[in-house]
């Protein structure tokens, strides 16, 4: 049935987009910290920290992933919907404020500078560098935890945990590869546009699952997700236009 195919693919498309972009953005943030640690204190301890963080994240997924399947679906969708609604609105808010020039746009430059300054203040680098290990571990674990939460919540609610995991893995490998290749130029990634898109997708999913958890019957079922994306995209665009200072002439600098 063509209608069924359309509704399934629109839901899957939003899921894939949300998981891929959210994972990519978190990966860029984690990679910035790891690159700063590697360049400043050496790669051995930094990579050890990355390895241990990945093992810890895998253990968390193994522990909580199967447990989530046993939570009643309507309760799970309500909790997931609420979390995504809050998380998505936070991301969108930051993205709008960045677009309006009220928040620093290139976080990666700042994160890199702060991490390097902190590491340089720590003094000499021994062969087994505890500080580098801890910094790399914390960066990867905390950013990775957000990826894990996104994958588990979106994947379980949509009954597509396998697909969500694969998409996240592809995003992590892709960003990791490109990040290693460009090394310190991670600030060139259009992070704000990506965050804005993720925010729109997360709020859309948050709205959809919150409604499902509260027994709301959406017109067109999954297709309503696309309507949510359109509504939130228009509202976000309108907010960016409204809050952008009008007196200041905008100067485009060619890259």
């Amino acid at each position: 049935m063509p209608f069924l195919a359309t509704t399934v693919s629109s839901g899957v498309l939003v899921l894939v987009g949300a998981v891929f972009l959210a994972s990519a953005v978190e990966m860029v943030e984690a990679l910035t910290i790891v690159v700063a640690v590697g360049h400043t204190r050496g790669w051995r301890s930094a990579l050890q920290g990355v390895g241990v963080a990945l093992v810890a994240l895998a253990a968390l997924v193994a522990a909580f992933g199967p447990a989530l399947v046993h939570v009643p679906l309507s309760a799970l969708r309500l909790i997931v919907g609420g979390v995504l609604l809050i998380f998505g609105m936070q991301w969108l808010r930051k993205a709008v404020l960045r677009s309006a020039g009220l928040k620093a746009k290139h976080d990666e430059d700042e994160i890199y500078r702060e991490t390097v300054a902190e590491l340089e203040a720590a003094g000499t680098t021994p062969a087994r560098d505890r500080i580098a290990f801890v910094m790399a571990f914390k960066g990867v674990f905390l950013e990775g935890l957000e990826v894990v939460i996104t994958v588990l919540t979106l994947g379980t609610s949509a009954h597509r945990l396998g697909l969500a995991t694969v998409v996240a893995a592809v995003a992590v490998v892709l960003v990791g590869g490109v990040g290693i290749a460009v090394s310190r130029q991670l600030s060139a990634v259009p992070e704000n546009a990506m965050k804005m898109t993720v925010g729109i997708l997360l709020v859309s999913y948050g709205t959809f699952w919150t409604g499902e958890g509260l027994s709301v019957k959406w017109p067109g079922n999954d297709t309503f997700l696309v309507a949510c994306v359109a509504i939130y995209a228009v509202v976000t665009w309108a907010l960016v236009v409204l809050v952008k200072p009008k007196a200041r002439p905008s100067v485009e600098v060619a890259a």
Partner: protein
Amino acid sequence: MSTKSSWPLRALKGFGMFWWDFLVGDTPELFVAAVVTIVIIDLVSRVGHHNSLAVWLLPILAVVSFSTSVWRAVSKARKK
């Protein structure tokens, strides 16, 4: 008596702090707005059985919450 707490307690505290930062952080108004939205939609949909009202009210409440939070941040930043 040692002032250092045991590792399970520290892990629990860290876990709680992570979720607090994740959900509340520096935008408690968005957390409160989401909770209020859920309560309103529950009343409209499950108690009042007004499905079509809930369908449009949920995105509208989300838009109002998010726009209000942005507006608050903008006016705060411009006052500085």
